[in-house]
C-alpha cells in the first residue's frame, strides 16, 4: 500500500471563502466561478459572481441548479427532510409531490400593518421546485456561516434553506422609514450552528463592498439590497436649490461600517422629492 505524496490542495472561493476541490470550476457552496478572478472596480465595488448557466450549488443533502442568464431560475432538488422558505409569489413550477406548509411567524399583525408578506411558505423534500422573480437581474448566492446576521431589503430574497432563522427588524428612525425607501422593515437572516444558504435576486447587476469600521458610503435608497447587521443606515437629505425658483431635495442612505453592503444597479426612486 502506498501513500500519495501529493499534498491535499484546495481552492478557496473568493466570494464565500468555502474550500473546494482543486479540480472544481465553480464553488460548491455559492456557484461562483473559481477560474475567474474577483472583479473589483477602482472605487472598491466587487461584482457579485456571474454564476454560469447550469451551475450546481450544494446545501445539506440537497442541490440547487441556477439556470438562465436574463431572469435566472433557482431549481431545487430537495432531499427528504430538507426544506426551503420563500415568498409564495416567486414559485415558477414544482413537482406535485413536494409538500407545502407555512412558516409560523411572530409579529403577524406588525407585518400586516407594514405591508410585508404575511405568509412565508415552506417547501419540504423530496422533490423538485423552482423559483424566479419578475425582472431582469442576477441571483446572489450568500452562504451564511454560523454567527452571521444579514439584513435584506424586503421582497428581495428568493429563498433560504431551513438552517437559517428568518425574522424581520424595524428600520430605526422616523426619517429612515419615511424617506429611506425601504419601508418599515427589513428581512433578517441569522445562522445558528449550521451553515445555511440564502439566495437573493437583485434587479440589474449586483455589487458589494466591505466597509471598514466607521467608513461610510452614500447610496440611492432604492439600490440597497443587503447589508451585514453591523452596518448602520441613516437617511441624508441633499438640498438642491435653483435660485429664485426655490428647489427640491433628494434623500440618500448613508451606510456606515463595519461590514458588507450590497447594491443593485436597477432601482426605483422612492420619496426623493
Amino acid at each position, binding site marked *: 500500500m502506498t501513500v500519495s505524496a501529493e499534498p491535499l490542495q484546495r481552492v478557496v472561493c473568493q466570494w464565500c471563502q468555502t474550500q473546494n476541490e482543486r479540480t472544481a470550476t465553480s464553488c460548491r457552496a455559492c456557484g461562483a466561478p473559481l477560474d475567474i478572478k474577483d472583479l473589483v472596480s477602482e472605487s472598491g465595488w466587487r461584482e457579485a459572481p456571474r454564476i454560469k448557466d447550469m451551475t450546481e450549488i450544494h446545501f445539506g443533502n440537497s442541490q440547487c441548479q441556477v*439556470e438562465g442568464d436574463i431572469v435566472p431560475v433557482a431549481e431545487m432538488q430537495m432531499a427528504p427532510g430538507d426544506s426551503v422558505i420563500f415568498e409564495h409569489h416567486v*414559485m*415558477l413550477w414544482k413537482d406535485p409531490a413536494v*409538500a*407545502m406548509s407555512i412558516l409560523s411567524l411572530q409579529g403577524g399583525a406588525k407585518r400586516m400593518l407594514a405591508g410585508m408578506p404575511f405568509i412565508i411558505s415552506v417547501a419540504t423534500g423530496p422533490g423538485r421546485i423552482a423559483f424566479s422573480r*419578475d425582472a431582469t437581474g442576477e441571483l446572489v448566492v450568500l452562504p451564511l456561516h454560523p454567527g452571521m446576521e444579514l439584513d435584506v431589503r424586503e421582497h428581495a430574497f428568493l429563498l433560504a434553506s431551513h438552517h437559517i432563522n428568518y425574522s424581520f427588524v424595524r428600520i430605526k428612525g422616523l426619517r429612515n422609514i419615511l424617506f429611506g425607501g425601504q419601508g418599515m422593515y427589513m428581512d433578517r437572516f441569522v445562522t445558528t450552528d449550521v451553515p445555511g444558504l440564502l439566495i437573493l435576486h437583485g434587479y440589474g447587476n449586483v455589487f458589494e463592498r466591505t466597509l471598514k469600521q466607521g467608513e461610510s458610503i452614500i447610496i440611492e435608497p432604492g439600490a440597497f439590497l443587503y447589508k451585514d447587521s453591523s452596518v448602520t443606515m441613516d437617511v441624508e437629505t441633499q438640498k438642491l436649490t435653483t435660485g429664485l425658483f426655490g428647489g427640491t431635495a433628494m434623500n440618500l442612505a448613508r451606510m456606515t461600517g463595519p461590514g458588507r453592503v450590497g447594491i443593485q444597479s436597477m432601482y426605483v426612486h422612492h420619496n426623493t422629492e
Partner: protein
Amino acid sequence: MSANMNQAASAQRNYTCSWCGTASDGTRLSCPGCGATVNVKNIVTDSGWTEAPGRKDMAVLQFGSSYCQIEGKYVPVADMNLSKDDSVYFAHHVLLWKEPQVNITNLPIKGAWKRLMAGLPVIMTQAHGPGHIAFSRDVPGETVALPIQPGQSVDVREHVFVVATGQVNYGFFQTGVWFTTKKDDETETHYPVGYLMDRFSVAQAPGLVLLHASGNVFVRKLNPGQSILVKPTALLFKDQTVQMQLYFEHPGGNTPTVLGGAAGGLGLLGNIANVMASFGQRYLWLQLNGPGRVAVQSAFEPVEGENGTITSNSQALRQRW
C-alpha cells in the same frame, strides 16, 4: 474527391437539428430552421427541462426563399429579408422598422368581437416581400423560433406571438381555465392563462413562428399521463396534445401559538391576525398533463385575483397538505 470526403459530405447533408428536427447540410454555424447552434450539445437541467438553444447573435434562419436574422441579446430583433414570393404576419405593435417597399396589408381574422373582449389584437398585419422588415418586443427576454411541421399544432399564450410565416395557419380557442372572485357585491371572472390562446398549425409546407418570452425559456416533454405544476402566467407554449386545468394547493403545518403572538409584540391580536391571514391560504397552479411539449418563461406576472376569495372555478384538482 476521396471516398472519405464523400462520406463526410453525405453526413453533413443529413444533419438534423436536435432542437427542432430540421434537416440541413450542416455547413452553417446555426440551424436554418430555428437558429440553434449546429452540433450544440443540448443543455438540459437535472430535472429534465431543456433550455432554449443557445442562439448566437446574428444567427440566420431560412424559410421558403427568405431569411430571418436574430440580432441582439437582451431584447432580440427578428430582422426578416423577405423574397418577393414570401410573406409574414404579425401584431402591429411589434413592428420595429421596415424598408419603404415592403407592402403591408390587413390579415382578416374571424371572431374579432371575441378577440376584442379578450384584449387581443383585432387586426393582424401582413407584410409582403421583397425587402427587409424587423420586429421586436418591449421586455428583456429570449426570442424562440418554433418551426411547425405539417400535422403539428402548437398552442401559444396570448401576447407572446411576434411573427409567423405566411404558410402557418392562425387560429385561437377559449382556454376554459377560469375562476371567479367575489368582493362585496361584485363578482369578477379571471382567466389565469388568458381567455383565448393562439393556435398555430400548417397544412402542407413547413412554417415558422417566432415568439418572444420574458426572461429565459425552458422546454420539457411530458410523457403520457405525466403532469407538472407551473405558474399559469409562466406558460409560454404547449403542444395541442397537452391538457391543462387549475390546481389548488393548500399548505399545511401552520401552527401559530399564543406564545408566538405575544412574542411578536401585539399579543393575541397578532396571533388572531396570523390565523386569519393563513386560513384559506392556497397556491394557484396550472396543471399540465402530457403527452407533449410544454415551455415556460422565467419572468412572469402575478396571477390576477389569486389572493381573492374564489367562489367558483373551472375544472380543478385540489391538494391539502
